[in-house]
């Protein structure tokens, strides 16, 4: 949710257990303004809170010219001092996937993973070699944030447009989804660079708009049931919850421009999803 309106956003998500204390809210209102100015962002989003054993991480996302590609993730433990997260390269992501357990709350904490390699020796002998891989918590945090962004970050259809020169910007004419549309998964799009546009059937449909439908709809997510659509106040507030990343909550008030998302969880992907539906 955007830094300027996160307070109302928190009210909408309060029903899912996303509550920040008054102290945290007051701090964020001050520090995000400074952050935006210092880092020369066009916009700052309050992205979420990842709970650790000792301490929590607050994550913010700064946006430059392009909403999709020109972003940077930042983290803070006290909601005041923000540090830039390292860029999640594929190597960092691969390493972070090996880390077990919860985040500790100390960015310099090292997770250790012992990889046992089996190297065939002479004859039938197999040497076992143990290799210890260390993963810094800060890097793991960056990887998890990037994973969540690519897996579950969503926007309502039509909220963003791609301009003819390829930039992704907010659609000023977006007036919200209708109540009937707001319960359909096809009305929500993954907010990530799409690699499968050319394969999409939907573009063949006459109704598709190239400026709007440049993102993948979440209706095709596997397994079916990765998303829960819940009306919180009758149909006055629609809340989408990811089951793949429990803790990712998205809200939208049908018929208005109000929408946003927040992640409040432990930073672990739900790999048991297939058994739980």
């Amino acid at each position, binding site marked *: 949710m955007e830094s300027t309106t996160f307070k109302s956003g928190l*009210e909408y998500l*309060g*029903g*899912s*257990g996303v*509550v*920040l*204390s*008054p*102290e*945290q809210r007051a701090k964020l209102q001050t520090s995000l303004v400074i952050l935006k100015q210092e880092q020369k962002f066009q916009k700052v989003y309050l992205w979420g809170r990842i*709970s650790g*054993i*000792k*301490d929590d991480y607050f994550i913010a996302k700064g946006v430059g010219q392009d909403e999709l590609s020109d972003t940077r993730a930042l983290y803070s433990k*006290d909601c005041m001092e923000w540090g830039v997260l390292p860029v999640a390269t594929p190597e960092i992501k691969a390493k972070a996937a090996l880390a*077990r*357990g*919860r985040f500790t709350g100390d960015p310099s904490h090292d997770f250790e993973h012992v990889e046992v390699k089996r190297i065939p020796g002479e004859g039938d002998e197999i040497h076992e070699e143990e290799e210890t891989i260390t993963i810094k918590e800060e890097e793991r945090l960056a990887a998890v944030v990037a994973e969540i962004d690519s897996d579950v970050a969503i926007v309502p259809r039509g909220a963003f447009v791609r301009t003819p020169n390829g930039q992704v910007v907010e659609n*000023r*004419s977006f007036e919200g989804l209708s*109540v009937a549309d707001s319960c359909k998964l096809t009305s929500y799009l993954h907010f990530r660079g799409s690699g499968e546009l050319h394969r999409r059937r939907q573009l063949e449909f006459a109704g598709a708009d190239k400026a709007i439908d440049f993102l993948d709809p979440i209706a095709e997510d596997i397994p079916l*049931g990765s998303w*829960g659509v*819940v*009306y919180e*106040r*009758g*149909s*006055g507030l629609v809340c989408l*919850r990811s*089951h793949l990343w*429990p803790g990712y909550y998205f809200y939208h008030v049908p018929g208005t421009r109000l929408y946003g998302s927040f992640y409040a*969880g*432990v930073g672990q992907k739900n*790999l*048991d999803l297939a*058994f*739980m*539906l």
Partner: protein
Amino acid sequence: MSDTQSRKSSQPQTPVPDGAQEPTTKEQNFLTDKTYLLSTTNSTGINLYEHLVTCLRKILEERPRDVVDIFEDISKECKRSRLAGDGDSLRGKLDRSTEIALAEIQKRLFNRPDGDDDEAMGEDDADPRLPNLLQLAFFFEQGGVGIDKDEIYRIWLSLKKLVDEKPIEKLRFWGKVLGTEQNYYVAEVEFREGEGEEEAEEEAEPERDDKDDEEGEEEETEDDTPKPNFKPAPPVPKEEPGTGANKYAYFVCNEPGKAWIRLPNATPAQIHVARRIKKFFTGRLDAPIVTYPPFPGTEANYLRAQIARISAGTHVSPKDFYTFGEEEEEEEDGVGHESCAENPEYEPPPVRALADPEAWAHHVLHILPQGRTRWWNPVQIDEDEELEDEEEEKEEQPQPQPEVGPPLLTSLSEDAPIDGMQPWTVRLSSGLVQRFAVTVVSSNLWPGAHAVASGKVCENIYIGWGHKFTSENYSPAPPPPVMAEFVSDPELKETDDPTPEEEAALKALLAQAEEGEEEGYGDEEGGEDDD
């Protein structure tokens, strides 16, 4: 066309001026173009000239910022608004959206009680059964947990209704369980003594049904089909309402304002299976739970089992907040205390001292692996029932070791770590104004379970999916091992029937053997070998 030109030339209001004055070439060109714009209509009857006029009028009326960026959208909007009806129908259409339906239901919550207002309000003041939820919500908010205040208020009103309707001694808001389709709000109640048991009878019904089914089957299969003499172990009896895991009754509803539905009491079998499965709640109480191992019951039972597990694991309070009642000081046969009561003389320790798991204690009994808080000896019952016939077998059975859990009011610091991690996180709500900070204890085993203490107030709440944290992935229990083959012995070995020749040979052999042992052997050897 420049601005001035267009203004000048647009003065003639009709395409063909009546004036005898011959139009100039410029005007003539303009007229041709305008006629073109006016004449080109599509199937819906819009022409471009009119459309541009509508768009420009809309722009000039609304004066949006950076209008050139959204001109396409304005054009689209204008075309769309032409198609939309003006909404001026004779009878207003009834909006039957769920939002309105819910608002209608919730409106009832805000009605003042009937009768004399002052009197009714006076009664309400004296009613100690309803907790001060708004105060608790305030403390939860300080700690950064809980739910939205408006929602809490609605829940509060809805709880008030519940208190008025049922014979309730004590009530507490337990929390909110998220589901894939709807959510559950859970209220924890203690009934007045001797009341609230009518539901217990209702629960017994399904069991009775089962028995009927079994009897029916037996009648049907009244032939000589052999019946297995395997008897399943007797089910572990569930704890009586008001004790152990069933100490409290639980009511749930999907939205504040809707009816509260009582959950059935938990049985040990349900708790046992609930530990081995992981399933999302849907929000429908009658949804089937399709899992392996099979869960005995519907989602209502699963929810109840999870509530029992979460309560047992995460309900904590500062030390000395609860004490053992005096009459329970002497417990017979070494069994620990079963209940504790709020300590009226509780003196809150300083905030700093509370920020340590050592200073907190469990006030709900641990659930044993058996699925009960108090161990039940399965062998004992066998003795009573089968005293006569199975004396020997009984002796062979080893006396099972009673399962023992930690006693009530055990400190949090004695909880087992989760895969090397602390099971509890204790923190202060504020680092800046510590004197007035509230202490928040969050369970790492059950994410979403929190306890908050400030001064003489302490409360627990759970908001989450109702699942335990595991650092390893869930894998369903493997099916039981394949049963062993029946022990084969020579009696059961399958052999070919002897042919008539062989029989004849055997008879001859026997006859010879009778006659005299020495003579016959040599001749018959060939025949024997063939077998």
